[in-house]
């Protein structure tokens, strides 16, 4: 049970097999169809989601009804609204499955319990949090100052296979550019890198 989540945690955090086993009661595995909403805006986010297979995204909707993608979470990623979970306050985001997915749901109790029984996990969770802040800072900086092409190149280094899985408008939304700009960037790159040989 929870095989890939277990591999993920054991490998990265150094928690032992036995310790992980004792945490089973705090985990739920669910198979969810495409389109499933895991978190609604204004609801308190009670769980974090580890993606065993499939693809989730978090996004907000502005007053004009436009969606803004905050994060994608393919296989092996964790997605949640961390502050909503921690501060027990309503979320500004939605989390949705954009492919049929298998997801591990874990609550704050899991993190609390794991931190109690494993010093290795405690260190790992701290590192995860610091890394999360680093990613957020990086994302803010890119949204403020990077060109459309720089944002796109950054995106493909983080998510190498998403271009094949996600509609263009969603990627453009994540990048904070229009779908037309995204096409332009890709066309420009192709002009520089493509040499037809037939």
């Amino acid at each position: 049970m929870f095989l890939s989540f277990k591999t993920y945690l054991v490998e990265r955090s150094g928690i032992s097999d036995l310790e992980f086993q004792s945490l089973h009661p705090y985990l739920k595995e669910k198979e969810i169809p495409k389109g499933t909403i895991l978190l609604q805006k204004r609801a308190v986010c009670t769980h974090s989601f580890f993606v065993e297979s499939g693809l989730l995204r978090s996004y907000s909707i502005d007053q004009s009804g436009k969606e803004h993608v905050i994060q994608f979470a393919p296989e092996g990623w964790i997605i949640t609204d961390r502050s909503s979970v921690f501060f027990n306050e309503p979320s500004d985001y939605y989390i949705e499955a954009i492919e049929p997915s298998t997801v591990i749901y874990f609550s704050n109790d899991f993190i609390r319990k794991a931190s109690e029984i494993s010093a290795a996990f405690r260190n790992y969770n701290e590192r995860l949090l610091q890394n999360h802040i680093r990613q957020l800072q990086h994302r803010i900086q890119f949204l403020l100052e990077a060109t459309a092409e720089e944002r796109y190149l950054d995106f493909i280094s983080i998510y190498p296979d998403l271009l094949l899985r996600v509609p263009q408008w969603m990627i453009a939304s994540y990048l904070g550019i229009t779908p037309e700009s995204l096409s332009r960037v890709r066309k420009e790159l192709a002009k520089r890198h493509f040499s037809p040989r037939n």
Partner: protein
Amino acid sequence: MKTKTVERVYAPITPHFVGDGFRVHNFIPSAYQLDMQRMDPFIMLDYNSKHYFSATDSPRGVGVHPHRGFETVTIAYKGKIAHHDSAGNNGVIGEGDVQWMTAASGILHKEYHEREFSKNGGEFQMVQLWVNLPAAYKMSAPKYQEVTNNTIKKVELPDNNGSIEIISGEYDGNKGTAQTFTPIHLHNVKLNKGGKAAFNFPAHYNTAMLVVEGEVSVNDGEIVKTDHFVLMDNKGEHFEIKATTNAIVLLLSGEPINEPIAAHGPFVMNSKEELIQAFEDFNTGKFGYLED
């Protein structure tokens, strides 16, 4: 000479849509024991069994996507398919035609029902087969062989048994039309009711048939119905099919390439590193650009 016997007959599984234009039953690689290694050099076979598509002004199909490391062979039985690629090629695969596209180092393309066909609606039936390339040719230049029906080598069988269209490979000393990188026999066997045809392939060639029309018996035994797929064993060489009704059978037999296969979506390479490179090249525009 030993008889090649039926290993297993497969009923078509529940179809799924590729884009909105191709309603396909997958046989290779998802059916039991029809994985890429077992069927080498055939790595994918999608079959759109006869399906009526209603008239529409916006052609159904599948949008821009890449391929690298193999060839796609599209065989149109009913309906017409239009295609465009990132090197500026485009064309129409008409009824009875075959398009043999060597994606090799990489191509972006899109495939749609042809405009006129879409406007009128109609029956659509096709096969898309993916043929693997040996490592030495995976990064060769992409190319097309438009094998229109009038260029396909046809052999009439004696005694009004029927005829054989040799798309590639060889039948009874007659050479097929398409060039292949490894030995591949790909034939449309068209038999009249009661008609028979005999075949002979080396035992180690992976050999299978898809009955696209009518019904046949194999070696005077197993009956294979319309839309069913039959896998032959690798012990014998010789077998015979006989039509119990007028029938069309797509026959494939190929020499295994016997190299490691690393496959992810539209990329089929030899190693994980090459797959990662394929994603990177696709992301950075090395496959070109094509508008959806």
